[in-house]
């Protein structure tokens, strides 16, 4: 048989460019693959066992060789065997899987945080230094990165197969995932939760850079304002500082150092102030009244974009004293309402 050289060349190219196993490009990947191969082994052994039994019996006891069947009731010993052995194997899979799960979802304390906002149909990444990217994500190699993600509309899911990580991106709720890339290069980002028309277009690339290249990239693509600085401006322009001024007579609680602390609410419950709490308290303040304060804060639902909320959260996380809050307040008062009085949706 003769294959035309053109076709041959095409086939070779096609097959060599095709993928059969994903790259291992994060510290998690080898751990996930180890479990994968263990599960694969169980599957192959199980399938071989069942196949041997079925084919063995089919050949040994086919009608031509065994014209009369011998009736057998069953066997408690055999039943116990194939209950206990599979159960034991499945329990190993359970424990191993659980250990891997906690490894993938519990970030190390030194992880660098990057925010990701998902919306139909793009990924927006917000670096703490104020770099914004769409459908790309630049990260340094060898540095644990935590992604704090939220969706602006429907469910999305953030997946980097070569890192073996994935997490649902949920409307109205922060979710997190972390990874540490081990090899510089570019890898696929997929949205894996069906999200509408251009679901398959909601893809991107994560670019893993060496620390030097990453430094160059951060300097070259900064907008000049960090997330916290954006947040400070937003805090002032929306007039938050009028109540949250930190003065003893202020109508709202002081926010300096509030992040990470434990608050007692009017309903008596104790909460830990984290990103999710700060976001909820801005959008839905009546459910989050600090003990000793009146429920007078209006809701900001629909008035601040998810990016704006991220800026505010980052600002509050960095807020250690009320000095600058009060300064801004005094300046704007002495300027006699030169600052905009009505809050507006601020899109960075």
């Amino acid at each position, binding site marked *: 048989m003769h294959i035309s050289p053109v076709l041959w060349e095409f086939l070779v190219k*096609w*097959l060599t*460019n*095709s*993928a059969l*196993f*994903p790259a291992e490009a994060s510290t998690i990947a080898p751990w*996930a693959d180890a*479990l994968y191969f263990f*599960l694969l082994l169980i*599957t192959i052994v*199980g*399938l071989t066992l069942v196949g041997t*039994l*079925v084919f063995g*019996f*089919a050949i040994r*006891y*086919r*009608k*031509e060789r*065994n014209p*009369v*069947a*011998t*009736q*057998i*009731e*069953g*066997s408690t010993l*055999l*039943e116990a065997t*194939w*209950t206990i052995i*599979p*159960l034991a194997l*499945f*329990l190993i899979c*359970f424990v*191993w*899987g659980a250990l891997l*799960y*906690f*490894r993938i979802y519990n970030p190390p304390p030194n992880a660098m945080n990057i925010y990701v906002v998902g919306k139909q149909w793009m990924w927006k990444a917000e670096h703490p230094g104020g770099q914004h990217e769409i459908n790309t994500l630049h990260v340094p190699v060898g540095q644990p990165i935590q992604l704090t993600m939220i969706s602006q*509309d*429907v*469910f999305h899911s953030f997946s980097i197969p070569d890192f*073996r990580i994935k*997490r649902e991106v949920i409307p*109205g709720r922060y*979710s997190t995932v972390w990874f540490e890339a081990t090899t510089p290069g570019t890898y696929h980002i*997929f949205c*894996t939760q*069906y*999200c*509408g*028309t251009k*679901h*398959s*277009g909601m893809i991107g690339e994560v670019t893993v850079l060496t620390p030097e290249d990453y430094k160059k990239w951060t300097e070259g693509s900064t907008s000049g304002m960090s997330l916290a600085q954006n947040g400070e401006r937003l805090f002032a322009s929306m007039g938050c500082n009028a109540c949250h001024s930190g003065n003893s007579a202020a109508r709202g609680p002081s926010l300096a150092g509030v992040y990470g602390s434990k608050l007692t609410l009017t309903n008596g419950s104790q909460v830990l102030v984290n990103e999710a709490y700060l976001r909820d308290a801005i959008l839905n303040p009546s459910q989050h009244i600090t003990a000793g304060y009146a429920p007078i804060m209006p809701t900001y639902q629909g008035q601040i974009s998810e990016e704006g909320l991220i800026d505010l959260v980052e600002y509050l996380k960095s807020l250690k004293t009320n000095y600058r809050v009060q300064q801004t307040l005094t300046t704007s008062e002495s300027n006699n309402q030169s600052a905009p009085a009505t809050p507006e949706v601020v899109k960075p």
Partner: protein
Amino acid sequence: MSATSSTIVSLPDQKTATLPKKNYINAEDGLMSWLTTGDHKRIAMLYLISITFFFLIGGIFAGLIRLELLTPQPDLVASDTYNKLFSMHGIVMVFLFLVPSVPATVGNFLIPIMIGAKDLAFPKINLLSWYLYLAGAGFILAAMILGGVDTGWTFTTPFSTHFSNTHVVTAGLGVFIAGFSSIFTGLNFIVTIHRMRAPGMTWFRMPLFVWSNYAASILMVLGTPVLAITLVLVVLERTIHIGVFDPTLGGDPLLFQHLFWFYSHPAVYIMILPGMGVISEVMSTFSRKRVFGYTAVAFSSVAIALFGFFVWAHHMFIMGVSNYSALVFSLLTMLVAVPSAIKVFNWAFTMQKGSITFETPMLYALAFIGLFTIGGLTGVFLGSLGMDIHLTETYFIVAHFHYVMVGGMLMAFLGGVHFWWPKMVGRMYPESLSKLSAVITFVGFNLTFMPQFILGYLGMPRRYHSYPAEYQVMNVLSTAGATVLGIGFLLPLIYLAWSLKYGAIAGNNPWQATGLEWQIQSPPLTENFVETPIVTQEAYDYEWLAHKTEQEVTTVG
């Protein structure tokens, strides 16, 4: 017939044999007699025709999906069309084919006969459930014709409530109504099995097919209402914004998934359990042996039904459920895998020391065992928490559930239809052609879905209209397999229709099987039994059958 022959088929002398003069098919004439019938056998045939129609429609959608995925570029249809194709494929196949497949056709036909009853407990409700099925199917067809629905078969909020501008309400109502058809079928089976067993037909003399349908019926009756409630909430949220699922109105977007999977995971067992029942019957008949470990198989059905209700959150491991609930649901998922393993080993050991022949139903049953083993064990990958993170929402999961639903359930359905075809219509299907189509289906199936496991581990997300070029080779293989699989499904349709007129006369018991259904004429009388049978033998008692045949020969001769 010589003892060394490789078949157990024993047909009456074709020169003199005729179909019984009186049977349920010719008992009454005219379309109206079918549309107003209370006879469970006629209703089963009505179901068989309707679900075959919807299987064809769902199959055409599947074919178009595979054709689009032949190339990485989105070139055959627009993205919106593609999204509608896979949504409609899922909705039609799950709600209009898989859920009613075995229970409403084979089960409807056989459960009363197998336990020695004249009909189901509520014949009119049985007919009502077919009409409800048709009404639900009508809504879903209407949604399709009006322009389709693009939410996926899962109707995930808030996409389905706030973002999709397709016919979500129409399709949702269709599924809602079809759900009641399934509730009524389940209710009918439960009451029938409890109240209408013939004298001497104790619980542990029932064929395992009845046990597995009983377990599935419990799931239908307890699970389906939750789906109905969920769909009503989706419709209300979409039309009058009640705010149950919408976070901006104080709702919880994850609540929908809890409710939806509370039905839709047990639904997997609604689909597979009756199929497992078929496999038990077929394995026993063609091995000439009692099913190995009858009680273990019977109780494993009940155990699957019971555990099946407590694993739903394994669909949500990556969605930020608490670590504790992730642990609990993963553990329970591992437990539900055990009864399935028990069944597989019992079926394999049923063959031990048997006298095995390989007619078409047996080929389908053997294919089921292999494919279901793969489907089940890949389920363990997904139940294992850390592995699930990488595999969920990819083609791995698509391959996994097609191995269970198509490799398992559809093989069982085809096996069951071939096995009981002579009983249903009184004529045999052509044996060699059907063996060929069983083999084609098996090969085509593996070629279609095996590459998808590899694609899934590579990370190719499901429901993608276009994909990176390096995934093409596996997708081409999968599409090629789908073509073969399509032929494997079309062949039975043709030769079964042919056999209605030209098939060999089957006689009462072509397989020399032990079930009560094989001791009456084919096709049966409307009232099934001339006199109520009195059961003295266990299920799958081949010695009793041999003894009985001997006596008949002596009395007649």
